[in-house]
């Protein structure tokens, strides 16, 4: 299993990363190296091992529906590059997005 240069560029676009040709090549090598490890695992007989998304043997971690303190608005907005009327200011939106 290996990843092509086109796939690296596609994933970079989805992640909004602007990569140089040199970075595309280097990241492609890195990703292929990671996929190589997965190929190693694939060679094992895992028929009896159920798939899992977690290494922890823990389920159903939740919290009670109780209000906790919020940040002050000043704290919340402190990292905003531009702020007005108590809100984050963002530049003009051109298409795209997902409202769901």
């Amino acid at each position, binding site marked *: 299993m290996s990843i092509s240069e086109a796939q690296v560029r596609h994933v970079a676009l*989805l992640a909004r990363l602007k990569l140089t040709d040199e970075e595309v090549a280097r990241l492609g090598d890195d990703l292929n190296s990671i996929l190589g490890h997965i190929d190693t695992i694939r060679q094992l007989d895992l028929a009896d091992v159920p798939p899992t998304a977690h290494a922890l043997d823990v389920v159903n971690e939740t919290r009670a529906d109780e209000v906790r303190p919020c940040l002050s608005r000043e704290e919340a907005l402190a990292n905003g590059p531009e702020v007005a009327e108590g809100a984050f200011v963002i530049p003009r939106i051109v298409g795209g997005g997902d409202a769901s």
Partner: protein
Amino acid sequence: MAKDRLASVLERWEAVIGLEIHTELTALNTKMFCGCPVAFGGEPNTRVCPVCLGMPGALPVPNRAAIEATVLAGLATNCTIAEWSQFHRKNYFYPDMPKNYQISQYDLPFCADGFLDVEVEHDGAAQRPDRDAGYTTRIGITRIHLEEDTGKMIHVGGSEGRIAGATHSLVDFNRAGTGLMELVTEPDIRTPEEARRFAQKLRLIWLTLGVSDCNMEEGSMRVDANVSVRPRGETELGTKAEIKNMNSFKSLHDALAHEIVRQTEELDNGGRIVQETRHWDAGAKRTSSLRSKEEAHDYRYFPEPDMVPFEFSAEWIESVRATLPELPDEKRRRLIDAYGIPVHDATVLTGDDLDMAEFFEAAVTIGGAERAKAISNVMLNDLSMHLNAAGISVAESKVVPSMVAELVGLVEEGTISSKQAKEVFAEMAETGDAPGAIVELRGMKQVSDTGAIEEVVDRVIAANPAQVEQYRGGKTAVIGFFVGQVMREMGGQANPKVVNEVLARRLGG
């Protein structure tokens, strides 16, 4: 657009509709993954914390009550509850979503494979040429999953806060992270009316469960629709369009009606349907393309690493099921069985809001079960007309259950006629005075005393010999004239039944 336009289109074409319904869990105290309070409006960015702002290192923890609410919603809509489920990250970029991913569910949602049976009354049945009266149709529910809502944007510099022409936007994250339940139906819906009835029924169920205020104007319940058309008899699906921005049941119905007509016209004119998202403009009464970029969405879902999976035992699922309240369908059946009211009455009383059935039961408790049909009549006629005319809900009306029970009692006891009851209703709806007091004050008591009525009848007969001759000559319709004369003489307070009896007897002699 004329109603019959849609009906004639639907004679040749069949619409295939599926709904996606997002409901904010507004009944909860806190958001989905953090302890920030849930509320509507307020000063921007005052209900936020590192978790719902997506700050690095913040750890989301799921709200137990939100999961229970979703499982309860699944059980109320005949879904199977997953024994094994988990959250996923859905990756995309939009400024109202602070983390650049939304915590949602993917292949392991909490609830799947449910259904709702939807009743369509006579008017709506006209949209189905293959059905000829009111009917019930089963709409499959593909899944219900839980996710988090986005923030809100205010677009500045354009017209009417629209994104087009805006110079910049303001982002408020108060709503970001609020628990959001998404229900997806199977493409089982065939008409705008079925879509409306499904959404209305679902709202009633959610209200009964107490999981959300389901306010479509404020956006706590949002309905999107996928719609395509195909010639009747065709089994292949046509190309679908997704319709958004329908913020009332009427908008949902009208947007679908317009979209169906638009698609069929396009196809009739040799055109084709483009798969796209369209925005409903309730003012202009049309849908328009949002012209989103052609780039296919690639959300790169992966399991949420900050949260462990869920494993629900059969015992736990049953313990949630045990908390289910009486649902609208059960209530409808009970009203029919317990009070003997017609199916139509029970459907109307339980079909639009919880308040009407509550009002009905309170009135019957006061007035007695033997008056249930009469109480239902007043509610379906006088009360509904009054509420429609005033544009208010039953909770906002001055009419309360005890007043309707009392009014029905006054008619049944013969104190006032049913015609007088209409006047009394109008007055009590306006003033909030009890019907007994209105009758007293206006001296409206009905006269049922046969002696008093006979006296007036004899006088009227003596004064109108020509009409008497007509009647006796076989023109019996003239009795209406005599009833009118007697009523006028008695100020409309005579019991019409007694007047008719006395007249028939005296004139016949």
